[in-house]
């Protein structure tokens, strides 16, 4: 163990003396996290396609089914129908889907003439700030389309008007107000009888025509559900895990290249003449990479807590996440070191691989902007699982069971990568 420790400390010393490497390992991720955290903080919307949402129809009425169908017909949504609101909320909280829309009981009975807006419940993954505004906008638009349908269908509108007239007597309105509303609704009822005969609702043009605007009223009410805490996570809590992953990718690339450098310069040969196995030499390199990735994570997480006031939801689980991510990228480092014969080749190929992993894993752009098959491919990216594990422990309120899958994936990738990388490294040496 002493020899492995000596090898690791040697590599850490070399890292500290490489100013460029040190910058990209420790300071670049901080810049990344602060930069994107600030952007997310001021972000008010975004755009995308193929956003995955869950729709829960609790009303089970003709109207709610029609509204759910309209959401499914929207090209920018990929809708998964569910029945259990709590289960849907959990899925979104854990990052499985971007949002959920609940069509609550009573949706079909809402009467706008009695001041009862169509109510909807919306929950959006807090890390998908770019999509949140878009989703709310699209859901609202679909609700207004529903409203438009009501007005354009005189039978439905008459039913609503007559229901409202019947309920006026039981309302808390004073006599003067009751008279005014009855007069208005009776006039509306008469209008709804005569208007179709006069061809007022005659064609599509009517639906497209714009009115002069009416009195301000809100016929659609969308209640937002905070999935995490009262105010949702800090934008820095969302940005920092991505920054950490970028720093860790820099570590993995750097140590992978250093292994190629050692092989080409002959220091690896010298190390292998020492009375320790080849595996110990590689373990020493792996330990140095592991310690550096843990160091990067620790520095950024301390900064996140001390400067930006974000308290992780679970420190023990965060520790598990950090260690799992570190193991994963040690394995990736070993694989990268076998991809090039020269430092330049290893560096180029290594960073290309990292960028692809980051792109697929949502480390560069929101997954919502990707095609469906790319979103499916993102499950293969360790970046996705790394971010999920970190977010789970920082603000997604993951429990141990929730952390199991991402951490298991990361550990498996890490161990398999190290074993395969070691074999390939041995093979390339010969």
């Amino acid at each position, binding site marked *: 163990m*002493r020899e492995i420790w000596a090898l690791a400390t040697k590599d850490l010393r070399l890292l500290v003396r490489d100013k460029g490497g040190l910058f990209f390992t420790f300071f670049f991720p901080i810049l990344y996290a602060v930069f994107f955290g600030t952007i997310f903080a001021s972000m008010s919307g975004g755009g995308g396609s193929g956003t995955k949402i869950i729709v829960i129809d609790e009303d089970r009425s003709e109207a709610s089914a029609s509204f759910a169908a309209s959401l499914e017909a929207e090209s920018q949504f990929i809708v998964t129908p569910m029945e259990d609101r709590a289960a849907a909320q959990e899925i979104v909280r854990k990052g499985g889907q971007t949002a959920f829309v609940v069509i609550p009981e009573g949706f079909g009975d809402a009467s706008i003439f009695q001041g009862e807006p169509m109510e909807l419940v919306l929950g959006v993954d807090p890390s998908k700030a770019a999509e949140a505004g878009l989703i709310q906008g699209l859901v609202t638009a679909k609700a207004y389309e529903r409203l438009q349908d009501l007005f354009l269908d005189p039978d439905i509108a008459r039913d609503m008007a007559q229901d409202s007239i019947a309920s006026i007597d039981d309302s808390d309105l004073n006599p003067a107000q009751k008279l005014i509303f009855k007069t208005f609704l009776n006039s509306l009822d008469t209008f709804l009888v005569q208007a179709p005969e006069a061809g007022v609702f005659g064609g599509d043009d009517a639906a497209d025509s714009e009115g002069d605007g009416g009195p301000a009223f809100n016929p659609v009410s969308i209640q937002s559900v905070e999935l995490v805490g009262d105010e949702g996570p800090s934008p820095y809590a969302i940005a920092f895990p991505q920054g950490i992953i970028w720093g860790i990718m820099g570590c993995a690339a750097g140590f992978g290249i250093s292994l190629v450098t050692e092989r080409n*310069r002959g220091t690896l*040969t*010298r190390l292998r003449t020492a009375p320790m196995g080849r595996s110990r030499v590689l373990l020493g390199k792996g330990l140095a990479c592991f310690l550096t990735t843990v160091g990067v994570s620790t520095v950024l997480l301390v900064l996140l807590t001390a400067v930006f006031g974000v308290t992780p939801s679970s420190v023990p689980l965060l520790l598990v996440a950090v260690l799992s991510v570190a193991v994963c990228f040690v394995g990736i480092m070993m694989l990268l070191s076998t991809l090039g014969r020269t430092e330049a080749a290893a560096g180029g190929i290594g960073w290309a691989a990292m960028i692809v992993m980051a792109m697929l894993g949502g480390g560069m752009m929101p997954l919502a902007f990707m095609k469906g098959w790319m979103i499916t491919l993102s499950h293969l990216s360790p970046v996705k699982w790394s971010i999920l594990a970190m977010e789970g422990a920082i603000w997604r309120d993951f429990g141990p069971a929730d952390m199991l899958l991402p951490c298991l994936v990361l550990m498996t990738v890490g161990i398999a990568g190290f074993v395969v990388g070691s074999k390939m490294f041995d093979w390339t040496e010969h």
Partner: protein
Amino acid sequence: MITLDTISKRFGSITAVDGLSLAIEPGEVFGLLGPNGAGKSTTIAMTVGLLSPDSGTVRIDGGDPVDAAVRASLGVAPQSLAIYDEMTARENLVFFGSIYGLDGATRTRRADELLELVGLTDRARDRVKGFSGGMKRRVNLACALVHDPRVVLLDEPTAGVDPQSRHAIFEIVRELQDQGRTIVYTTHYMEEAQKLCSRVGVIDKGNLLALDSVDGLICEHGGESVVRIERAEGEERVQTAEPLAVLQRAAREREHDGRAGRSARSGDSLSESHRPEPQGLSGTSPERALGREQRHSRACARGS
């Protein structure tokens, strides 16, 4: 004792070492002489267990060099500078001491001793990247000695160094020899082998062409040197056992002719045209020596 028993190594279609056998005695300085690509480094790699021979065996004091205990007794200075540029000379030594399991106090003591041995005590705390090629070579050599090995393998330790460092390395090798260490020294300079080695194996294309002391090799295969002098009237070849004396005599003649020419006709180029042009010592340069060894070997093979 180092024993190589008919070891062979192929890389694809290339035979790097072809049935090489050697026995190197304890305390001996053994030279492995050959041109670039002769198979010297491959032989060293198999000797220290970095490469497995395709056939044949390697034994060091009866043990397999793959064994940790055997490796602990070996010190290797590879041909490439296997040190860390961003670390100081002392840090390099301490690091290589640590991977051999030396404790802190021993590492520090050995680092001090070796810095003294290679003449770099005053540069101990400087990063190696600022060192000259010769100084780096000395650090490279010191790193091979930090764990006090019984057997030291030096793979072309003077490649690309200045005369001062080269001399310093010679002195270090002699001191190691005085300490009773077994040394395997690869080089393609006959002069180095002649100065340092008690025995020399001449290797080319993976074959051992000759094995003897340097004097024995020159006596048996080299014969007398041939000095070729170019004059205006033609080339003169002199076969001699004392080539330096012939060269000095030719230089004196040139000097004498030059003075005579200037006193007769100042600026007359005729005197210059009579200047003897010593071209070198045929038979003492390593390439010519090796070529001769090869020819001799073939002649022996044909004779047998």
